[in-house]
Structures are given as C-alpha cells and as structure tokens.
C-alpha cells in the first residue's frame, strides 16, 4: 500500500543524470520520447500512490478528530472506560456476524469456483460465472429486505429446532426469536452478499493454476480431487486468503442489510434470539438521531474509527499469512 510510488522515484534522477555527459556519444540522444513517457508514467504512478495515502490519512484524521468527544470530556477527563463499555459489545457483534458469514460463504465459494474452473463443461461454467457475478449487482438494501421479510421468518422453525435439541450449547440457548431477525440471520444474509467476491477471486486464481503442475499430479496417478489438493489449492492458497479477506472486509462494513435484518439489542452469546448489534448498523441507525457536535455523534464516529482499525488489522494479518510462506509460493 505504501511503497510502490516512492520506491521508483529516487532511482530515476540518478539514472538520468549519470548519462548526461557532454560529448559525442551516439547513444545519448536516442529515444527521448521513450524517456519522456517513462517519466510521465512514473510520475502518474507516484501520484496515484500518494493520492491513496492522502485519502486514507484524511479519513483517519477526520475519524480521530471527531471521536475525541467520545473518550474525553472536560468535566470528567478521560472516559475511555465508559467508551469501551459501549464499544465492545458492538465489536463482538460485528465479529460474530462476519464470522458466521465467512464460515458459511467460504466453503460454498471455493466449491463453486472449483466447479467452474475444473469440473463443469465450458459453456455451463460461463453462465454460472455470470449468475454468481449477478449476486454482486444486487443492492444491499434489497438483501436487507429479503433477509427481513423472507429469510428471517423462514429460519424461525430452524431456530426453534436448534433451541430444543441443542439448547445446552450457549450459542443456541435463550429465547428463540419469533421474527427470525437475529444475528444468525444477518450472518446468512452477509454470507450470500460476500459469496460473489470470494467466488470470483477464487475462480480467477484456480484457472491460473499451471497446467504443468496439474499434469504432474495426474501423471503420478492422482484422481481429480487429489490433483486439486496437490496442485490447485497450494497454488491458490494466497489467492483464496485474499478473496476471503475481501469478503470479510465487505461483511465487516456492511450496513444496510444488517440494519434492516437485525433487531438490535444487548450483547448475548445466543445466535438465535434477538440481540446483538454490529458497528455499521449501530452507526446507520444512530446517526440520524444524533445532533451534530453532540457527544452521541462523537461516540458513533469513534466506533467508526474502531471498525477502521479492525479492518486494517484484518488486512494486515491476511498479508502476513500470505507472505509467511513466500519461499514455497512458486514465485521464485
């Protein structure tokens, strides 16, 4: 995220000035247009890199500046404790909903991507690909409406069954919701929403598996599935993680669908009773009622900052996981 823009710029000038010796060297004047193009391109690249950093910095500054009111008040001094008590149920709620979404969506996405890339007849694979991409084109408010008025009620009997048979597990304890508008329903809706992004990233990377390695596995007597575990998955590992992280990013930040589906409440371990809330939903529901400049608004912005930091940590962790096995990635 940081380096590409900067790392090019220092190399450039020295490279140029080194060759600027006066004299009759026939090699000096050639291809000035190409040199110009090179400079322009490196300038544009630098600018784009800087633009991202600046935007990011502005967002971070805005969030930090406006959230001061939530953790510091002149009469009471630092009130970090109070803010944390407010924020942590939301953080946990957000993580639970995203986790449910990931656990449900990842296997399906990987399966669909594998089917498209390695199992289906070519013509069918294209149309399935389009259909999956279509899922990404549905506005999140539509997903929210679907979750609220269809999926939720449809899951009510499931919740009842879970409570009856697995009620001893804290996840399924508590009163099952009669409307189905629970954190689990929200997680399912999120799963459907992040399915396309994970699928298309996985599909792209699966297709790129070198034929060479697939054939190596097959020639050793691997079945199709063994070939996939020997050649495709190891090759695609980093790509799958990136796809999942992109999906997680979307799930963490998804606002509208969760706000519509979930009937928010206090933090509870139960997935099937109403309760819990997520950061984006809390902000979306609370913001219209928070007067500008008020403590409430500062509080909402502050949890926005918390979400920002969580997402940052998630992305950095993903990158770390991807890099950890660089030696074995096949890039060398």
């Amino acid at each position, binding site marked *: 995220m940081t380096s590409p823009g900067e790392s090019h710029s220092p190399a450039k000038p020295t490279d140029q000035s080194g060759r600027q010796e006066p004299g009759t060297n026939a090699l000096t004047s050639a291809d000035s247009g190409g040199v110009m193009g090179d400079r322009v391109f490196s300038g544009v690249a630098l600018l784009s890199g800087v633009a991202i950093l600046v935007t990011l910095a502005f967002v971070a500054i805005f969030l930090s500046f406006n959230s001061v009111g939530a953790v510091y008040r002149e009469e009471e001094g630092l009130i970090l404790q109070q803010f944390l008590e407010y924020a942590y149920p939301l953080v946990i709620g957000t993580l639970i909903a995203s986790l449910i979404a990931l656990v449900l969506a990842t296997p399906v996405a990987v399966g669909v991507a594998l089917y498209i890339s390695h199992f289906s007849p*070519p013509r069918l694979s294209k149309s399935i690909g389009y259909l999956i991409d279509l899922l990404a084109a549905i506005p999140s408010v539509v997903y929210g409406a679907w979750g609220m008025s269809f999926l939720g009620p449809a899951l009510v009997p499931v919740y009842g069954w879970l409570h009856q048979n697995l009620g001893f597990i804290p996840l399924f304890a508590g009163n099952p919701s009669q409307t189905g508008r629970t954190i689990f329903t929200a997680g399912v809706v999120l799963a459907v929403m992040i399915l396309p992004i994970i699928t298309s990233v996985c599909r792209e990377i699966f297709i790129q598996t*070198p034929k*060479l*390695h*697939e*054939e*190596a*596995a*097959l*020639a*050793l*007597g*691997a*079945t199709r599935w*063994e070939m996939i575990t*020997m*050649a495709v998955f*190891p*090759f695609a*590992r980093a790509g799958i993680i990136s796809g999942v992280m992109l999906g997680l990013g979307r799930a963490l930040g998804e606002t509208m669908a969760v706000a519509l589906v979930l009937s928010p409440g206090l933090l509870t371990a139960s997935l099937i009773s109403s309760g819990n809330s997520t950061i984006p939903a809390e902000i979306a529901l609370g913001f219209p009622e928070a007067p500008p400049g008020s403590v409430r608004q500062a509080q909402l912005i502050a949890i926005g900052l918390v979400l920002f930091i969580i997402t940052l940590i998630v992305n950095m962790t993903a990158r770390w996981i991807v890099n950890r*096995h660089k*030696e*074995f*990635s*096949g890039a*060398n």
Partner: protein
Amino acid sequence: MSKSITAKDLNVYYGDFLAVEGVNIEIAARSVTAFIGPSGCGKTTFLRSLNRMHEVLPGARVEGQLLLDDDNIYGPGVDPVTVRSMVGMVFQRPNPFPTMSIRENVLAGYKLNGARMSKSQADDIVEGALHGANLWNEVKDRLDKPGSGLSGGQQQRLCIARTVAVKPEVILMDEPCSALDPISTLAIEDLISELQQEYTIVIVTHNMQQAARVSQKTAFFNIAGTGKPGKMIEYAETSTIFNNPSNQQTERYVSGKFG
C-alpha cells in the same frame, strides 16, 4: 517390475481430428525406446496416449488396443488413475510442486496410494528415490527446502525421483532435456541408462544424437502435411535407423535434409 508395451492399430483423436494414425509397435521391457520426428508429427501425442494423459484435454480419445504386457489399458472399466500410477511420466519442463519441499515432492506420488508409513520408511523411500535419480548427494542436506529452488537440471532429476518413487512399470519422458544445459542433459542421459536396468523407458526427443546415445530402438514419426495425421514411419534398432534406414523419409530426416 517393468512391463512391455504393445500398440495395435492405435488411432489417437482430438475430437474429430485424427492426430496419430495406425500405430503398431512393440516395446520390450527393460529397454530404452526413442521417438524422433519433426515437430507436430504426433510423437508426443502418442507418448501421452501410453498413460492416458492425453485424455486430460477435452475431446481427446483413442481407438485400437494398447497392451501393458497383456492388459489393454483402454479396456472397459480400466481407471486411467491406475494406468498412470503404473506408467509414470517426466515432462518437457521440470515441474516439481512449488509449494512442497524436496522431500515432500519425492513422496507426493507415494502418498497418493494412501499408504501409512513411518518416518523411517519415508526416509528410506526418499533416499532410495533420490539415489535412483542421482540427486541424493546434491540435496541430502536441504531436503526441507523448496524443490523450486534447485537448478533446472536438478529439478528435472527431482521429477524423475518423484516418478521412480512410486515404482512404476514404465517411465515416459517427453523431451526431458530440451530445457536443460548440456551438463544437466548428460546427467539425465546417464540416469536413463541406469534406470533401464529396472524400467521400460520411452523417450521423445528432438535431439537425434541423444536418441542415438540412449536408446536401443528408435521409432521415426512423420506427417504428410498440416491437417494430416501423423504416422509411425519406421521402427527398428537405433543403429539401423541412423545408419541404414529402410525408408527414404527416415533417411532424409536422420541425415538432416529436413525437419
């Protein structure tokens, strides 16, 4: 171990396109047989039909019989997976699994059989296979390093070790030296003549000197023109093919008049 190969009127198709027509050949066990011929003449296609690898491409199929000793590998109910575990293959470009260490690469095929093995058994297999591929001394201190960190020639020998580790009956080699320098090529050729004690080896090569050096028998393939099927023109002792071929096309090819 090691079995003979007999092809009877073998036609190889890609969809409707007949790529190789009417091959009849008998390859003896424990020998090296070279396939030579100009590009596109179907020798690689035929080689890949010997372990049903050509079926990986959609629409590819075979007519005729291909016997491994007495069993038709294209017989009804024959699983290509079984065939491939008996007929190993080494490819044109070295292709060790990049995410696996040298040790894991050698064991990759072995593990497919699902056989549980102790660490010492696995160590024996790794050492045996790497010795068999003349690679042991070069890699014994870095078995846990990635296979992709080796040189091209070492990688190719690693691939041979991986193939040898599953104890196949036959080893097919598809231009195994075409991406290697002369020294590595020499190492592979030495290896081939050692492997021949135990395995039936079929090698496709563009290098006629190589065919002359490593093989006992040579088959010459040719193609009448683009869009026409490739055919096996002549199959005989290597010395006969190179010194006294009976077919004029063979004579012109081995003397460098075309191809």
